[in-house]
């Protein structure tokens, strides 16, 4: 895609995904600012001033237990979180964690930091963590998920908000954000200079939930072994370090459905790595 003759995005990338990411980043940022403005008596007309909690699908996940046992939502969580949770699950059942790869503004910011990291470290970027350690750490986000669900269920309060880098990202100018959230946000941004999407890979509890749908989603990333040149481009460019070139269908729990590995992007052979609900030859 070009703008005044200048290329806006890296060649062989899914440019429309970048636009979608920008859209959701700006939308959430404006809503977060508007929330602050409304509390101080101002506000932008025609724009939602909902709190971030109300627009977070993970809020729906953590309130399931309380909703099932008491019939109420966790403090600061509203019906909208439940609606977004259902929409998120519906999308994930069909396409995998597209929310992570296309919508989540924290993922977007990590990708922006990754651009800088790639310039600094070239081919070493995203390959700093030893493979065996990386494999183990990938499951840490399930521990985070278990902890968040447990403390929310037993306390009835959003304790995770004090550590949530997403909440800190869009509230750093308010007194509502906790120091823990700012520290984790800072650490995530710094680590993004070395590892692509470190929060998503190792700690995101919502990514952990959505990641499970990679095991049974309808549309999958599939590789046609008959036409594959086995040049490894798909694996090298995968932000989540998934060895796409060794799999016929990607069922890795970390896939974020970004489509950057497909023939539409980095794969040089047409119709070889595709996003499909059918079979490939």
């Amino acid at each position, binding site marked *: 895609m070009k703008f005044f003759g200048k290329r806006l995005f890296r060649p062989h990338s899914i440019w429309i995904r970048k636009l*979608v990411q920008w859209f959701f980043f700006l939308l959430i940022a404006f809503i977060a600012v508007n929330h602050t403005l409304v509390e101080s008596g101002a506000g932008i007309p025609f724009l939602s001033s909902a709190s971030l909690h109300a627009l977070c699908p993970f809020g729906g996940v953590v309130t399931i237990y309380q909703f099932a046992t008491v019939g109420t939502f966790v*403090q600061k969580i509203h019906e909208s979180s439940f609606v977004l949770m259902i929409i998120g699950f519906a999308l994930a059942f069909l396409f995998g964690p597209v929310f992570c790869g296309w919508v989540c503004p924290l993922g977007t910011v990590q990708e922006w930091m990754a651009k800088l990291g790639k310039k600094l470290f070239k081919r070493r970027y995203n390959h700093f963590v030893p493979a065996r350690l990386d494999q183990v750490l990938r499951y840490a986000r399930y521990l985070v998920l278990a902890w968040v669900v447990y403390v929310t269920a037993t306390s009835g309060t959003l304790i995770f908000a004090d550590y949530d880098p997403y909440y800190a990202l869009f509230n750093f100018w308010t007194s509502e954000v906790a120091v823990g959230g700012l520290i984790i946000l800072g650490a995530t941004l710094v680590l993004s200079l070395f590892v692509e999407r470190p929060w998503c890979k190792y700690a995101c509890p919502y990514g952990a939930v959505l990641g499970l749908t990679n095991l049974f989603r309808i549309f999958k990333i599939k590789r046609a072994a008959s036409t594959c040149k086995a040049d490894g481009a798909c694996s090298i460019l995968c932000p989540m370090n998934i060895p796409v070139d060794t799999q016929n269908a990607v069922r890795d729990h970390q896939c974020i459905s970004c489509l950057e590995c497909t023939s539409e992007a980095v794969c040089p052979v047409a119709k070889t790595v595709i996003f499909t*609900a059918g079979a490939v030859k």
Partner: protein
Amino acid sequence: MTLNSKSLAVILFVVLFGGIALSAALGWWQTESSKVAATYTEGEFAGQANPADIRGSYTFGDVEKNFGIPAALLAQAFNIQTDDPDAFATKELETIYAESTLEVGTASVRLFVAFYNGLPFDLSTEIYLPQSAADILHTRTLTPEQLAYLDAHIVPDPAAPAVDSAPITESTPEAEATERLVKGKTTFQEVLDWGVPQSVIEQILGAPMPNPLTTVKDFCTAQGLSFETVKAQLQAEVDKVK
């Protein structure tokens, strides 16, 4: 069936915003608590909004919508100087009257509304009103019991606190953690976490404690208990173990 990135982007927008639009049409899309007060369930005033359900998150504008008392009059009653009384959150009264030795807060607004509209209200706990509110209520028709209560529960007006615009309506998590105040949204789990034994809570409730994630206020409303009374007793227990 194979999808490319453009198709996926379109589907993503359609499902996401279509889902939101559908839920909004069905009345499910709520991004904030409904500010509709619970009603009396029995007696002469059954069906009318109950001032005991006014919450700290209610603005004077919300109180006006529920009880018909103009927000400007509420601001006058509580001596609040603001250009936008509709946006003033009742919970901010505690901050504004922080210098007062006697607490003026959301409970004071409940009391004022009940007396102003001639609605029944539990007077077994100590709730205070500023002189300016009492002056307005003296112009209303009050029972002798209400008059006696009112005259015994007046605090001097503060020095006309000015509020340029609507204040921040949510206290910080740190402040809430250290305050240990029993409020409308306090759950039984929080009271337990603050060190009050379940047996003591049940003694105050006069009934088995519900699921700990239930808020004290919701339980009181459902059981027909006075939240103000239960709140005061629980707060006393919390203060004991501080």
